[in-house]
């Protein structure tokens, strides 16, 4: 496979903030590459530099074999960009917006019309085709913005937080569409704060924190260190205050944590047997509601590598925190 995107030593500083700090990575042609990090990690700045919306302070960018360093326009015909916010024209209808975006890539009028109708149908927006974009719901706006990024059949598609702020059904539909595009051979560069989304969709994932890439690998390799870790979660009430020291003494092989009130997490290097732990807790007077084994996920890898709780990252993003 040839490289779809190759970035070397990319740096970008905004006043006092080093937004992107010497990052290098490559995305193979046809690959679905995930770019994960908390707000302000440098995800959007990186996309902006690759796509030509920002000028790197240093480093090189190569897209589909074209050296774009200092020449951001040279590969723009090959890429499609879906920004993190819908940025189409509120005064134009959905159909007009798509036709206009297609014209920016030199598509002829019949090509524009055919492609616009096709995408409106794919995104189930046919009935809203002649309504002004300004009157669309948030989910519809998001879908049309993604359609606009794909209107010229780009070889490489940049998706910046595509499923943020939309309803569950639309998000599912989008994920299935992303998978379909990937299967058709489109190179996809996806930034998201939904770790489970990245785990499900991406071939490889890069974690970025404070402008630095802390780890890049494929999903199975990222999960490898967790293969021999077994976890169990117990939800209960009436926990005695000195429970953790006591239970740790009774089950010395295991690690016990009480992260949240009424929730105990148990970790072991071997499979965990639920019954003895439940019995012990009941003997201590705890009232157990739920006890389950948990499969370690990419979220655990992310937390371990970055030290950032995934929940916090998700909440920050959903609150609409500002990004660099």
């Amino acid at each position: 496979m040839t490289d779809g995107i190759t970035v070397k030593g990319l740096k970008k500083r905004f006043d006092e903030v080093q937004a992107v700090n010497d990052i290098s990575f490559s995305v193979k042609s046809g690959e679905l590459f995930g770019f994960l990090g908390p707000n302000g990690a440098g995800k959007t700045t990186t996309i902006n530099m690759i796509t030509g919306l920002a000028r790197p302070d240093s480093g090189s960018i190569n897209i589909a074999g074209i050296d774009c360093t200092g020449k951001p326009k040279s590969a723009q015909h090959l890429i499609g960009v879906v920004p993190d916010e819908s940025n189409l024209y509120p005064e134009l209808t959905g159909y007009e917006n798509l036709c206009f975006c297609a014209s920016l890539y030199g598509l002829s009028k019949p090509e524009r019309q055919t492609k616009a109708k096709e995408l409106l149908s794919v995104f189930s927006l046919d009935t809203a085709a002649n309504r002004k974009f300004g009157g669309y719901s948030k989910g519809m706006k998001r879908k049309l913005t993604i359609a606009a990024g794909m209107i010229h059949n780009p070889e490489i598609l940049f998706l910046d937080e595509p499923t943020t702020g939309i309803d569950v059904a639309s998000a599912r539909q989008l994920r299935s569409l992303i998978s379909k595009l990937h299967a058709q051979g489109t190179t996809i560069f996806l930034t998201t704060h939904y770790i489970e989304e990245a785990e499900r969709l991406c071939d490889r994932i890069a974690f970025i924190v404070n402008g630095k890439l802390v780890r890049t690998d494929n999903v199975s390799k990222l999960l490898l260190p967790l293969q021999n870790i077994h976890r169990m979660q117990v939800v209960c009430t009436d926990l005695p205050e000195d429970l953790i020291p006591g239970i740790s003494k009774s089950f010395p092989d295991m690690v016990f944590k009480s992260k949240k009130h009424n929730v105990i997490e148990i970790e072991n290097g071997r499979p965990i047997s639920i019954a003895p732990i439940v019995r012990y807790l009941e003997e201590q007077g705890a009232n157990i509601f739920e006890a389950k084994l948990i499969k370690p996920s990419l979220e655990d890898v992310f937390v371990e590598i970055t030290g950032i709780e995934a929940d916090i990252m998700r909440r920050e993003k959903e609150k609409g925190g500002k990004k660099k």
Partner: protein
Amino acid sequence: MKAWIAFWNILLKDMKTYYLKPPNISWGIIFPLAWTGMFFIRSGSEFDSSTIISLIPGVVAVSILFGTTSLLAVTVTFEKKNRSFERLLLAPISLELLMLSKTVGAILFGVVNAFIPVIIASFFADLSGLSWPIFFVTVLLIAVSSTFLGLFIAVAVSEVFEAQTFSNFFRFPMLFLCGLFFPITQLPFFIRPLSYILPLTYGVDLLHWNVRRNHHLYTGLSLLMLILFCIILFSVSIRNIKHKWIA
């Protein structure tokens, strides 16, 4: 060829979204009429053919200046603010062609605005003495230079209201210093150099020459200076876009 498809469609989109909106059309008509009335009252003259003709340079120049700078500065700032401008910056066309496509709509709007008072004047005065080709070239050059001034302003600000405020910072001094209200030769000696660094001065002088043969600069020099202002303002704006918007 493909780049021209983008150029044409950006122009069409801007015409539809901004310039052909009823408020702008009515503004394009009311504004020149209001200025005609103001100039007419100020002159205190009889309502005759020579008075009407004498008002043409002022009304035409002011209509173009205000029409082009207002609309372009506001529309570009608006698109920058709601991030739809990013979509244009991502299009595989050169920045120069992109900005030309964004400005042609405002230039056409300025030219149409300029001819509204002329059409109205034609009902009351004999305009056969005007040299139409030179008049059209002058109107076009004033429209282009004013539009590029609007672009320069749009790139310098980030909010729509700033665009209006900053436009006035240029427009009102320009009105008083360009020779519309009083001849430049009557301005205090130390202010005169300012007049000669304003594009409108050369446009107004050309209009005066065309309408009343009442000018004080060489027509060739005025044309050349207007072209020079267009090139400088466009080049500086492109440079500023590269530095500020693709930072």
